[in-house]
């Protein structure tokens, strides 16, 4: 167990730059994905509003 801890410590010490960089990349990627999904959600709302408006106006026309 101690040996494993020591080995992990050595690996971490030797690779902290790489690991930090990968962590930053992961964060940036997650941010981009969040931006994409939220943008898509906004657009979906716009689409649904347009569809609902059209359906309402069609229904009103039918009633008249």
């Amino acid at each position, binding site marked *: 167990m101690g040996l494993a801890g020591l080995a992990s410590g050595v690996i971490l010490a030797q690779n902290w730059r790489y690991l930090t960089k990968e962590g930053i990349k992961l964060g940036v990627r997650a941010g981009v994905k969040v931006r994409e999904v939220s943008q898509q959600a906004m657009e979906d709302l716009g689409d649904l509003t347009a569809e609902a408006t*059209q359906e309402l106006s069609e229904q009103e026309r039918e009633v008249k």
Partner: protein
Amino acid sequence: MLPGRVVSPEDSSGIRLLSATRGRERWEVKAIGRKPNVARELEKALLQYPGVLQVNANPVSGRALVLYAPQTVGLHVESLIRESLADLSKRNLARNSNSTNGSSLSRIINLSLPERKVLVAPGLLSIVGHAVGVILGLCFVGIFNTASGKGSGFLRALGLVSKGSRIFFMTSVSLLLIGVELLTRNRRKKAWRRLALDAQHNLRTELVSKIQEQDMAFFDNHGAGNLIKLVTEDTARIKDFVERAGDEIVELGMIIIVYGSLLAITSPGLALITLLTLPFILLSARLFGKKAAERYSAAAAASSDFTQMLENNLTGIADVKSFTAEQREVRRLSEADVQLADTALAAVSVSAIQAQLNFAFTNTGFFLTAAYGGYLATKGKITKGQYFLVAALFPGLVSALKDLDQVTGLYHGAANSAEQLAEVLDSRPAIQSGPLLSFAGSTRGEVALEGVSFGYDPSVQVLNNISLELKQGETLGIVGPTGSGKSTLLKLLLRFYDVNSGRILLDGHDIRQLSLRHLRGALSIVSQDAHLFQGTIRENVVYGQEHASEEQVLEALRDAEALSLIETLPGGLDAEVGERGNRLSGGERQRVAIARALLKLFSGAAILALDEATSQLDNETEAGIKRSLRKAALGKSIIIIAHRLSTIRSADRILVLERGSIIEEGTHETLLAGKGLYASLWQLQNEDPLGKLEVRIS
């Protein structure tokens, strides 16, 4: 999903309809995702089309919103997006026209394996498998060192004090690793094979789909044999490369990293000597790479010629036999095969020379390293154990490099195939579908040609300034000597080729503005050499109309005078017709083809075109079909091309073509009265069996 919300399935081109209301459509367009430049270009391109009011292509969401004037007739947003993307892709290709073989290969591999995650499983298996191999090598060195009195301090620290226990431990670890290697080897090979087969499948699907959408000029330029070779042989080369290269690269990478690091730690001087040969290896790759590309290209051309020749031979086998030319054909094919073998050998020999040189360089490196290592060991600058480590590890590196040489051969072949595949995948048909999907009302079938001129080779005109009109429900007969341009007229109407000048209208719309699917769906044609597909009679009749009922199929066969055919053939409707319908006679093939065309007519086609469709039928059968047609094609426009004038005698109007120009026009009676070419032909066919009359055919 809410009512009214439209979500279409995504297709291979990566566009999908997400929402559609009147004058407003939102599309998912994968090509613009995270590509602001492409999104901007798409916006500009779409705004060029009349009726499009506003476009918002968002690279963040990968979607495009198109607002258009809803009253615009025939505006089809999907076609506009596809067309614009195709244009953009063409422009990008033009920019990248200086791409090398290598970049073609990486493009083709990216295309065949669009998702990187599929590489994870085989990659991990390779890492595990080859890591085990590397550790085994280190265990072997460890056992030797322990036996010769040295030993790992690490093992001592684990409590393995005696030499025997350390050797036992390392042997046990080695045996365990051998077991792991055996277990993973098969899975690793299978994983890479599966990945390669998936890549081949994706590539073939993309290629076949690209070939299907090409225009006829493409098929005129590329022979069938060449295209078959591309789909079978060249995609298989890419598959072989993917299957071998990934695994080899992982192996070599691990060996170089592990052994190279050990070498550098043991003695930097030794590591430098090992690297001395590297520039020579790189130089040989550069020198021979170019040569190999040329040779592989020549081999590919020879292979294409051979496939083409074989395809010609097999499709014309009846003529080969009737002219007793079997021996000549065997000789020709044998010569082509020898040529193919020679060029393939020449290509392989370049790769082989490169491989031999690389082997020589690496071996030289080994001996230099061994000699210098021995010198350092005798001087006491490195221990004998370290010297043995270097000497023992080096063959592993050499072996990996030898394997890489085989991959080099595969790479050259795959790079050449990739270039040829890229050429076809990048080619864009000159005949593009128009934006008009449908127009008010159903297709009436009114055709007009206005000053149409055309030549397959623009310098040799086949049709000169042709103008004609076909009204709804009218039957138009076209006659003329061979080569007068009769069949070409139909090819132009189907937009197999575009006119050089003039225009063709269907129901008043220039056919270049119509969607190809709509245009060709409006025409039902039986060509001169009716082609039947391998399969049953039923499959051939319902070809393109798969939802037709049994009653409709039987009705079409009855109208085509082909009902007796299914009554006599064992299996009836499900009787196999053989390859190209070769189990049927010429007349039987024609009748099945007519039934197929009639079924399309029943399904809504507005025009029936028969190009020498009854030439192989006897007069009685032909008369029966004509009677049926009057009923079946009631209200439809009909074009009949025939040499046998009795076939078109009852047409509402007859055109006589000579050398690509209309020289006579009228009904049968008026043309006979005119005493021109038509009258001469009629007389020759009906009244002058001895051929005393001189017919003006030049």
